[in-house]
């Protein structure tokens, strides 16, 4: 029984079949990588998990609950968090405020009319947010405005924001894209540490094979909208179908 079960998902944009009969099963507590060449449908698939897109046919079940037709914020409240390809953070707010928001969202739900409370007096939320910043090693940047940070820091902040919600499933869309090698390695360490400590299930889309093979416990290879192989990392490397997908095959 997987935490996320995707069955026969199809999605077309006009004449383009972006996803064809995609089946995917993400086991609880694992890091599952989804790889594939550009245009294979990886991001489309992820968008179907978070409510940004609705598949034409098929089912997406999370913890036994269908995610189809549910709004993004409801999916998130159910326990699915997402790190985007380009960091989506609250750029005008301080780093600390960025982390406060998911902490409030976790505690208070999708809407609470608490216009007369004071952020200053929410001690438990403040402590949680601070701890989160310590965990991702950003406490020294606490009062910086988020937009003034480097791309790598923005990503780490976004990860901290997602983790602050204690998600059951964390979706990461190319978490190391555009990062320097050192930052990439830091991210790998951070993710595996989180996985060790909190047992959060993760689905990672990634191009960087170094990242994929350092983290993933299972890998699905997507090509032209279908999952061509789903297997353990050691079996993926030399798999003829995978090589064909990446190198263009016999065409």
């Amino acid at each position, binding site marked *: 029984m997987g935490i996320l079960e995707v069955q026969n998902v199809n999605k077309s944009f006009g004449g383009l079949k972006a996803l064809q009969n995609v089946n995917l099963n993400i086991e609880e507590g694992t890091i599952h990588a989804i790889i594939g060449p550009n245009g294979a449908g990886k991001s489309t698939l992820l968008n179907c998990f978070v409510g940004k897109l609705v598949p034409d046919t098929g089912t997406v079940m999370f913890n036994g609950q269908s995610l189809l037709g549910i709004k*993004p*914020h409801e999916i998130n*409240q159910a326990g699915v968090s997402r790190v985007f390809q380009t960091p989506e*953070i609250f750029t*005008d707010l301080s780093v600390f405020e960025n982390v*406060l928001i998911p902490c409030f969202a976790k505690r208070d739900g999708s809407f609470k009319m608490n216009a007369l409370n*004071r952020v200053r007096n929410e001690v438990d939320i403040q402590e949680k947010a601070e701890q989160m910043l310590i965990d991702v090693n950003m406490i020294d940047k606490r009062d910086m405005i988020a937009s003034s940070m480097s791309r790598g820091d923005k990503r780490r902040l976004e990860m901290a924001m997602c983790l602050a919600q204690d998600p059951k499933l964390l979706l990461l869309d190319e978490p190391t894209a555009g990062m320097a090698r050192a930052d990439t390695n830091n991210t790998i360490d951070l993710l595996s540490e989180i996985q060790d400590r909190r047992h959060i299930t993760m689905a990672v889309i990634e191009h960087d094979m170094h990242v994929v093979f350092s983290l993933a416990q299972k890998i699905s290879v997507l090509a032209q909208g279908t999952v061509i192989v789903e297997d353990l990392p050691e079996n993926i490397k030399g798999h003829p179908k995978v090589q064909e997908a990446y190198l263009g095959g016999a065409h």
Partner: protein
Amino acid sequence: MNTFSKADKNTLLFVIIITMLAPFILNPFPEGSAMAQFNAGYPDLMQRFAIFGILAVGFNILFGLTGYLSFGHAAFLGVGSYSAVWMFKLLSMNIIPALILSVIIAGVFALVIGFISLRRSGIYFSILTLAFAQMSFSLAYSVLTPITNGETGLQITLNDPRILDGGTGAGNLPVTGLFGMEMRNTFTLDVGAWAFQFNVGYYVCAIFLILAFYLSMRIFRSPFGLMLRAIKTNQTRLNYTGLNSRPYTLAAFVISGMYAGLAGGLMASMDPLAGAERMQWTASGEIVLMTILGGAGTLLGPVLGAGFIKYFENIFSKINDNVLHTWFSFMPDGLENAIVWVLHFFVGKGWHLTLGMLFMLVVIFLPGGLMEGADRIRARFGRNKGDGDDTPNATTPAE
């Protein structure tokens, strides 16, 4: 309780002191002096400062925090005024029931308009609110004449029932009051050449302004306010953080509509008269202008902006050619006429030109409004002080 930071407490204290001492502060020039026409310390204008301050503070909760630019806020102002006058006609000349009804009716209006308009964001939201406001304006002139009294405007008459006061149908028109204190009562304090006017109506407005400001401060510093700021910054992230932006924006819209309703009610309380022109799009535009000029998203900015625009409207517009001629009478005739001819376009009826140019200057050079200007000045002084603090080791003692 550690409610606010020290800076916030100081800001609140600043507002309280300024509003309470406004009759002195706005009246710096002695009566009869050439500068006396720059005095703004008369009841009418001071009331307007406070009322438009409330309006701008409320507008800022929507625009400053969430970034949703409503171009129809004058509709709530008008609705508030009509509600208040109806209360004066039907119930009593006491302003309290009038203000309560103004706020409630404006809130209901805001709920309906917001519910529909907030389905869209950006320019489409602005257009929708503008459409609703213009619709209210046109309806007030046409179909709704039985309620609004059309072009004449809604007024109190001697024949009104006024069930609590017992309308008599004889004597003079009653005046608005607060448990017997008449809004128009003014106490004049003569100190030397100065005449300071303390008006009951102004102080009522000022107290509401302080309360409105305090509430807005609480909202700014609350988790709710944090979410509103998050909406302005990145709605996508907010939705993927498990928060539903719609109820937040709607709540902000209703709160800010209620502020406008209160302002409209106060306007009618100072002068029991409500006309449809209060809802026209130019009035909505003025609110936007005030907020941006002062500094959208800052606590104090909108109040400053409101004061600034109202000052210009009432003071600059009164400077006519005759006044200009007396100012420049020391010059040779030709030069005097030339200068008056040039300045003629900027004062009197031309005050809009001056305001427009000032607005452009502020938007171009101080995108954060007057508050940004104040911050820059403070930063400059602060830095000088900082340098002084940092360098005592380097400087040799003077003695």
